[in-house]
């Protein structure tokens, strides 16, 4: 007992960082900090008054041109008493503790030592590693805004602010990750969003305790209410227009530094079927497309299990004309319908995954191998029936109609579960699976809000933008299930 206790104390002490919070900044301490850092530079310059100034910075983190323009050149020409008055950088702050100095250094600041005043200053000259604004690759649309987020969080905020130029659009900054020190920005429209969402998000963000966050999905994992569900509980998007729309209806957005994907919450199951293009098309066309997506999702999870159910348990359900085709196709197959479908689905998943990982130029080869060799040859070899190839094809294409890619992946797992159930209990098994799935969705929450709203809980008014996309001027109120503080979307009630 005592041994354990003493060991745990010793370990605790070993892992504890040195208490640098209150340590004063000295050149020696900073030299020790940047030891073995090849990209760290310590240079000395004299001002016009012959005052010595020491500069310390990380070469790879700062903008070298701006360093010359804003600091080195003004310093050499400067005749002021303090160096603060000499430098031309916009963000200059006084440094007191060593911890502060280290933090500023790693954020891309140049540390300057005013030897006369014995004072350290930090001038932010970070080199923004940002790519150009490009079109979204994951949520492509034909019409509508083409810009998408980049890895630079400040730039992403600008893109949203340009769409909602309001002072009530608030941004709260959090830092998560003991190693990555990732910046997370919580955005919401004050006075519109339900304050409960903000307090839940704040609470969750402040309690995150992990070392490394490289993507927004990592943050989502720590904020989700149900870790073991296959359904995403935060909407991930790289489209600023989607974020702006979500903020406008009373949701919140989390922008994460170094990733182009923002998180939107609370989300519902039905948001997974909505595309930004829905609000661009004519409402009848958009409604039709949305219905097609729901039907496709249903088809993608049930078509192959239904094939297994019919060929294993319910031959009597197949009309005579189709039955004769099926019989002819299946008469010489060595595998049972379940194994036939299972192996085919596994093969399809392998091809799908390979097509994502392979270089673009190899994609054609993969198409030939997947389509001709595996598809046609397996039928000719007598391993699978022609009917199954058609069914698997329909199911695979149908799964791509869901706009959310994460959802497409989760359908695969659901499909396998349904496949097993259908092989045991036929159509009844599929319905068992469906009840289980719907009960699961009914129990899920996103940011503590029901995931299956507005169906269960039932919000009739929100159905105008659920299975159909009603005309925009009919959507007089914001979604009721989000309980926004500002209910009406019109300034003047009609």
């Amino acid at each position: 007992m005592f041994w354990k206790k003493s060991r745990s104390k010793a370990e605790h002490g070993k892992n504890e960082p040195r208490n640098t919070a209150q340590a004063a900044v000295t050149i020696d301490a900073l030299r020790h900090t940047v030891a073995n850092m090849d990209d760290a530079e310590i240079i000395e310059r004299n001002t016009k008054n012959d005052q010595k100034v020491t500069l310390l910075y990380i070469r790879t983190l700062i903008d070298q041109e701006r360093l010359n323009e804003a600091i080195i050149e003004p310093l050499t020409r400067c005749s002021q008493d303090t160096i603060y008055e000499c430098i031309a950088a916009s963000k200059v702050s006084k440094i007191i503790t060593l911890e502060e100095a280290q933090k500023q250094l790693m954020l891309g600041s140049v540390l300057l030592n005013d030897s006369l005043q014995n004072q350290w200053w930090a001038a932010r000259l970070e080199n923004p590693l940002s790519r150009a604004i490009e079109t979204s690759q994951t949520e492509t649309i034909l019409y509508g805004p083409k810009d998408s987020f980049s890895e630079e969080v400040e730039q992403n905020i600008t893109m949203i602010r340009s769409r909602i130029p309001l002072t009530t659009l608030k941004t709260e900054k959090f830092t998560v990750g003991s190693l990555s020190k990732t910046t997370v920005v919580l955005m919401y429209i004050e006075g519109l969003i339900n304050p409960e969402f903000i307090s839940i998000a704040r609470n969750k963000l402040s309690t995150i305790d992990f070392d490394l966050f490289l993507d927004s999905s990592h943050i989502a994992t720590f904020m989700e209410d149900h870790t073991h569900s296959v359904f995403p509980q935060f909407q991930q998007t790289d489209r600023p227009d989607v974020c702006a729309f979500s903020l406008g209806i009373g949701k919140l957005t989390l922008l994460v530094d170094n990733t182009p994907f923002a998180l939107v919450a609370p989300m519902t199951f039905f948001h997974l079927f909505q595309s930004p293009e829905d609000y661009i098309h004519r409402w009848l066309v958009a409604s039709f497309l949305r219905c097609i997506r729901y039907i496709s999702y249903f088809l993608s999870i049930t078509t192959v299990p239904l094939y297994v159910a019919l060929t294993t348990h319910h031959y009597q359900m197949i009309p005579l004309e189709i039955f004769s085709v099926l019989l002819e196709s299946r008469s010489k197959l060595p595998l049972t319908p379940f194994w036939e479908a299972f192996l085919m689905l596994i093969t399809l998943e392998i091809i799908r995954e390979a097509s994502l990982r392979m270089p673009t130029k190899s994609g054609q080869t993969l198409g030939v191998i997947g389509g001709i060799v595996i598809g046609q040859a397996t039928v000719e070899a007598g391993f699978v029936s022609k009917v199954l190839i058609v069914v698997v094809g329909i199911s695979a294409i149908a799964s791509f109609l869901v706009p959310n890619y994460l959802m497409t992946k989760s359908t695969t797992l659901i499909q396998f579960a349904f496949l097993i159930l259908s092989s045991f209990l036929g159509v009844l098994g599929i319905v068992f699976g469906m009840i289980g799935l719907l009960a699961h969705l009914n129990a899920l929450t996103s940011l503590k809000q029901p995931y299956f709203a507005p169906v269960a809980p039932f919000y009739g008014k929100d159905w105008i933008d659920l299975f159909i996309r009603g005309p925009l001027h009919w959507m007089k109120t914001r979604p009721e299930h989000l309980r926004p503080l500002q209910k009406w979307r019109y300034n003047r009630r009609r």
Partner: protein
Amino acid sequence: MTAFSLYDKTSTFSGVYVMFMVNRLQMLYFILIMPSYLVHPYMIWGIIVIGILSQINLTILSKWFASDYSAKGYQGFVELFSERAVRFFAFAGLFLIVVKITVITLGYVEVVHKFMYPSMDKKWLILFILLVSCYVAAQGMEKTIRFVVIAFLSTVWIALVYFSFFFPPIASLYDLYPLIPVDWSMHSWKGLLFIWSSLSGPEYLICLVPWLNSKQKMLKYLTIANAMSVLEYLLLFVASLLFFGSNYLSKSKFPVIDMIRYLQSPVFDRIDIILISVHMFHFVFAISIFLLYFYGAVRIIVGRLHEQTTRIGFMTSCITIFICMIIVK
């Protein structure tokens, strides 16, 4: 492991949920067996009369919803009857709940067995239905009440399938005569009582009042639900009369199901297999809510109402019900 809370109350449910629940609970038996007990066309009036009687029951129920005692939940019952009496009622209620669960489960299993899996052991079907019901119930009372929306939307459309029986060549107006009874036998009385019993079910809502929004006028929703049930009863009964005729209606054990076997669709034959399976939504909802009632009643009897619900306790209740069903079968 997270706390297992079955009876949490974080929000209240509007009258729409009451409407859905009343309608689905009233439709439990009819879809399976009812028309074969009614047989005569003049029973159309019987359905309407019993529907009006049922409305009186629902009016009394709405008075309970509006009372101060109901909002207090268990404490309200204790204030009215004393704790000992409430325990006694809960004990008596246990048997009624077991009977209700057993009848609806075995009734549905019988249909599945007859029309879909004649060679399968019924025990497996009972087990599967109970398992999925346990899963739904294990989400808690709030989510089970919410599940009624899914159950309602998944099954209510099935009534529309029967409209095709109202058109020639199947429909013949002569099958609806005589609309005035020429004789009145014991069988007719049994038929009336059967309608009354099948319109029962909403009375179980007296225990759900803490979860319901007390500010809403529930009588409106109860009336709509009752009217919907009566209309569905009439629709199914008249459709079965038109299809079988009153002479042959009594010969079929499950007329409502038998009828859909004759419907054809371009994609599937035997669409009854799909429709019977879809009906399970409705039964799973009813069984899961009764499972929660059962476990709640057990907790009242053993005096552990104010303690945290446990997985073991809930699973023991489910297993007890499963054993009861196997014994009854």
